[in-house]
């Protein structure tokens, strides 16, 4: 059984994270990778509020990204919506309250999102002069790792905001 969440708070968080992505995220690049806060939110809402919320959050986050990016229009909408839905469908199978599990899940779903993006992108844009390994080691793995590390600081804040922390008697 999932908790309820207000749409307003989802869209507010997405807008705030979009502003962060547009302005300051580039300044905290490590090894040329930047964390994806919007993807992190999609994974969080899918994980704790189910596939339906994950799908909607992914769709909205992707659409916002597509509007302000020069990426193929719609590609983020599709891939983030699929990611949000997948996270939500698979979430009952995990003990998601553990920080280590959360990090591992964020890494896995970030990889999933990026690989899905790569596949759609190669179907549509047909860039052949950059090999898959260049994308994998230059972008996909570093960005997924960085996003999963960032989840250590963001997930606890969101969990406490939505009262999702496990009660002591269950620990």
């Amino acid at each position: 059984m999932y908790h309820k969440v207000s749409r307003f708070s989802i869209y507010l968080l997405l807008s705030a994270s979009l502003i962060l992505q547009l302005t300051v995220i580039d300044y905290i690049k490590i090894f040329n990778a930047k964390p994806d806060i919007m993807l992190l939110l999609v994974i969080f809402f899918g994980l704790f509020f189910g596939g339906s919320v994950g799908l909607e959050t992914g769709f909205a986050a992707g659409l916002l990204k597509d509007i302000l990016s020069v990426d193929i229009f719609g590609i983020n909408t599709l891939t983030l919506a699929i990611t949000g839905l997948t996270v939500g469908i698979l979430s009952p199978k995990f003990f998601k309250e553990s920080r280590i599990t959360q990090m591992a899940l964020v890494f896995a779903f970030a990889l999933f999102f990026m690989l899905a993006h790569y596949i759609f992108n190669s179907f549509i844009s047909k860039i052949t002069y950059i090999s898959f390994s260049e994308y994998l080691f230059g972008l996909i793995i570093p960005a997924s790792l960085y996003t999963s590390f960032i989840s250590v600081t963001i997930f606890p804040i969101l969990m406490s905001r939505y009262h999702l922390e496990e009660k002591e008697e269950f620990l």
Partner: protein
Amino acid sequence: MRNQKKRIVKILVVLSAAILIILSSSAARLIRINLADTSTPLLKTVHSFLGFLEDIAPFAVLREENRILRDRIDLLTRMAEEGQAINDENARLRNLLDFRKMIPYASMPAQVIGRDPSNWSNSLIIDKGAANGVKQNMAVMSTRGIVGRIVEIGKYSSKVLLITDPNLKVGVLIRRNRQGGVMVGRPGDRCKIIYIALDSDAKPGDKVITAGFGGVFPKGILVGEIEKVGKEEGRLYKYAIVKPSQDLSKLEEVLCIIR
């Protein structure tokens, strides 16, 4: 059962909408330009607010020191810091102005107000649009070299596709041996020159400049420096990895070249 059906319908509707967006690229592009343009005032406000935060950050530190030492010297230090920040900005703008006078093309200065939110593409949002005379495919450069080209224009803002984006191709020359190639963006804030002849003696440290083909980028502008040269299996050409002449993720002001 009914809930299940409702959920499946929702999933189908959302995914079909996403696919439709991809398929209707020209209409979507028009909507994107207009929507992105409406966010310009917000981005400008956030940009000024960040500038303001940057200005007051040293003050906070100095105020703390002042509270501890209660000394007049600290007050003077704070004033010096304040002056330094203004001096830095002045120097940066003067540099841009000098550079603008130096280059043989008319140019228009613009401020960077946003960056690409996606990991997959590299672009900048600048505060000049069609209302200021920005045109499609205008070359954009900084004091240290080429930056990219204009790809989407709103009324008051535009998007610049950076040279590190895999969708941007630039004709380039290796300055030392005048050998040419095509440079494309590559993940990891680097560029890659493809189609370098197998007998080329290109080596790390060689400077790369624009070739002037295609009519977008003027000839002879610095692009960067070769970091590595190699050959991919099954290809008849060599490739070179190029480090751009500047860190494109930290650009604050750029020049749009009017040709």
